[in-house]
C-alpha cells in the first residue's frame, strides 16, 4: 500500500508527456496509412476505373474516344457488331482460345513440375538451394527472349523438323504410320513434321514460360510434406505409384489447384507466344485487346471492354477455385 502511495504523486506529474508522444505516433501512423491508400488508389484503382469508363465510352473516328454510357462494346464482344441483324461469335471464340491455351498450358506446367519438385525436396538442402537459385534466375529471361528461342527450335528450316529429316526420324515416322497421326494433329505437312503455327507450339511455349513458377508454387507444400507419410504407406504394401496416387497427390491437392489457378490467370493475358505460334484464327482476347488499343483499328473503348471481360473471366475462375478448395478442405 505504502509503495503505491509513493508512486502515485510521481505518476500525476508525468501524464502530459507520454500522452503527447503517443498522439504524435498515432498521427504518424495515420499519415502512413493514408499515403499507402493513396498509392493503391492511384496505381491500381484509378487505372481500373479509367478502363471501365472507357469501355462504356464511344469511339471517335480517326481520333480517340469520348465519354458515353453505351453497352455496344460489350454487345459487340458477345454477339458481334451487326447484331441483331447478324450474329457472330468471333470475340467469344477468342476468349475460348484464351482460356483453352491457359488451362492446357498451366495444367501441363503443374503436372510436369510436380514430380520434379517432389524429387527436388528429397535432395540435400544444398542441392535444393542450388535448384531454386537456378530456377529463380531463369525467371529473369524475358518472355520475348524465350519465345524467340522456341521459335528457332521449332522452325521448319533450322530447328527440330530439320533434325527429324536429317536424322531419319521423319522416314521412320512415315514407315511406322505415326506420320499420318501427326498430320491428323496438324503437326506435319506432306513432306516433314512441322511444329510452327500450331496449338502444340503455343501451349508448349506457354507452359515452358510458367514452369519455374509452378515449381516455386509447389515447393513449400511438398517440402513440408512429412516423409514418413510415404514411408508409412510403403510399409503397408503400397508400391511407389500407389504411394503417389493415394498419399502424396491427396496431400498436395490444394496447392496443386492453387498453382494451376494462379498460372491460368497469369497465362490468360499471354501475348507474345500466341502471336508467334498460334494460327491467326486461334488468336486470343489479349491479342485482340492489343490490336484494338494500339493496332490498326484504334478502337480504345472496344479494347477496354475486352480487357474488362478478360478480367472478369479471371475473377470468376479465382472464385470457383476458392469455392472448390473450401469444400474440399471441409468435406473431402
Amino acid at each position, binding site marked *: 500500500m505504502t509503495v503505491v502511495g509513493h508512486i502515485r504523486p510521481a505518476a500525476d506529474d508525468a501524464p502530459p508527456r507520454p500522452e503527447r508522444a503517443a498522439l504524435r505516433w498515432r498521427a504518424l501512423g495515420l499519415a502512413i496509412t493514408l499515403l499507402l491508400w493513396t498509392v493503391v488508389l492511384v496505381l491500381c484503382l484509378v487505372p481500373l476505373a479509367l478502363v471501365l469508363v472507357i469501355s462504356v465510352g464511344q469511339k471517335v473516328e480517326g481520333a480517340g474516344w469520348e465519354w458515353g454510357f453505351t453497352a455496344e462494346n460489350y454487345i459487340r464482344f458477345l454477339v458481334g457488331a451487326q447484331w441483331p441483324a447478324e450474329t457472330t461469335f468471333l470475340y467469344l471464340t477468342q476468349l475460348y482460345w484464351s482460356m483453352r491455351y491457359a488451362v492446357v498450358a498451366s495444367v501441363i506446367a503443374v503436372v510436369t513440375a510436380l514430380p520434379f519438385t517432389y524429387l527436388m525436396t528429397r535432395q540435400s538442402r544444398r542441392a535444393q538451394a542450388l535448384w531454386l537459385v537456378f530456377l529463380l534466375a531463369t525467371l529473369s529471361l524475358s518472355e520475348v527472349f524465350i519465345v524467340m528461342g522456341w521459335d528457332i527450335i521449332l522452325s521448319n528450316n533450322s530447328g527440330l523438323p530439320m533434325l527429324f529429316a536429317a536424322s531419319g526420324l521423319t522416314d521412320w515416322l512415315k514407315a511406322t504410320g505415326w506420320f499420318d497421326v501427326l498430320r491428323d494433329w496438324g503437326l506435319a505437312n506432306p513432306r516433314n513434321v512441322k511444329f510452327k503455327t500450331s496449338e502444340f507450339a503455343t501451349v508448349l511455349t506457354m507452359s515452358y514460360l510458367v514452369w519455374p513458377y509452378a515449381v516455386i508454387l509447389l515447393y513449400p507444400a511438398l517440402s513440408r510434406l*512429412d516423409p*514418413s*507419410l510415404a*514411408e*508409412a*504407406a*510403403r*510399409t*503397408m*504394401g*503400397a*508400391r511407389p505409384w*500407389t504411394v503417389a496416387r*493415394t*498419399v502424396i497427390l*491427396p*496431400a498436395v*491437392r490444394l496447392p496443386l489447384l492453387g498453382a494451376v489457378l494462379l498460372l491460368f490467370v497469369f497465362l490468360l493475358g499471354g501475348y507474345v507466344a500466341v502471336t508467334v505460334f498460334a494460327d491467326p484464327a486461334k488468336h486470343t482476347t489479349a491479342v485482340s485487346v492489343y490490336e484494338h488499343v494500339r493496332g490498326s483499328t484504334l478502337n480504345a473503348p472496344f479494347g477496354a471492354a475486352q480487357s474488362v471481360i478478360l478480367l472478369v473471366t479471371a475473377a470468376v475462375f479465382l472464385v470457383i477455385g476458392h469455392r472448390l478448395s473450401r469444400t474440399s478442405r471441409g468435406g*473431402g
Partner: protein
Amino acid sequence: MGALSLGNIGKEYGEARAVDGITLDFPEGQLTALLGPSGCGKTTLLRMIAGLEVPTRGTITMGGRDITRVPAHKRKFGMVFQSFALFPHLSVRDNVAYALTIAGTPRGEAAARADRLLDLVQLAGLGERRIGQLSGGQRQRVAIARALAQEPDVFLLDEPMSALDAKLREEMQVELRLLQQRLGVTTIVVTHDQREAMTMADRIIVMSRGKVEQEGTPQEIYHWPATGFVAGFIGRANFMDGIARDGRIMVGEIALSLPQAARFLDGSPVQLACRPEAIRMGEGGAGANRVQGRVTFVRDLGPVRDFHLETVLGKLVVEHGSDQSTSPKIGETVHLTLPPEALRIYPRLPPQDLSGGVPSALAAE
C-alpha cells in the same frame, strides 16, 4: 513366418557409421526393445528391418529367407512412426483400412476389419472422425491399429510414446504390452526411455554408438549390466574409479572387496558401479566395505528419499525408503555399507571411450 535374424548388419552414411556390424535374433512372438541414447543407431536399425533403408552390409533373414533387398512394400511388416504419419485426408476408418484397400480387399470387408481393429484399440465408434479431430493418445491408437491391419509378420514401433504426455505414456505402455501378448506378434520397439523398455519388453537390447552393448531380460540388464555404459543408462548407479590390488579394489585409500575382483590383474584400472538402493545406511552390522559419509542433500521423492553423501569414495547417492526410522539430516555423519554382491566391476577404458553419457557420480535417472 519364423524368427527374424540380423547377420552382421551395418549402415554407413558417407564417413559416419550409424550401425556397426550387429548380429541379433528376434524370437517369434516376443517383444524386443532397442534401447539407447539418441544417435546410437537404433532407429536406423529399425528402418533397415522395415526395408526403408538398405544396409551397407550384412543380411536380414525372416524364417531363413533372405529379405535384405526386399522392398518395404513386399515385407508385410507393420510400422508405427514417431510422428504417427496418419493420412490427414482420410477418415480414421480409411486410415486403418489403408493396407487392405490398396491390396484390393472389398470395401465392406475392409471397413468391417478396420472397425474390429478400432474396437481392439478402444476406439470403437470413432471411424468417421477426421485425424485432426483426435487427441495425441487417440492418434497413437489409430497408428497402432493401422499397422496391425495387414496382420504383419513383424510389428515395428519407432519411439511410439514420445509424442504423448507422461501419464498417458505409462498407460499406453501397459496397454500396448497387453495387446502384443494377446496377438502374439513379433514386435520390436525403439525407445530411449529405459522405463518404457522395462515395462514392455521380454528382451532389451541396449545399443550405443551403432553397437550392441548388452542383450537380456529387463532384470538381467538391470541387475547385471555388462558394461559401465549399461549400468549408467539403465537406472541409476554410483560410479567409482579404482585399481585392482591383491584381489581387492582400491578406491583412493579404501580397499573394497567383491567376488569378481580376483579376475583382475594387480594394477589394472577398473570402474565400480553400485545401485543407490543397494547401499545400506545406518549403524547396524560390521561386515566389509564400510565407510562413513556426511549428508549434503536430501531429496524427498515421496515413497523414497535420496541421500547425497560426501564420502572417502567420492560423492554417493543412497536411496532409502521414506518410511524407515533412520532418517539422517543434512550435515550428519552416517555409516554406509556397500555389499560386495551389489558391486559391479568393469575394466576402466580410456575416458573418450566412455563418452556415452556416463558422469562419474550418478548417471541417468
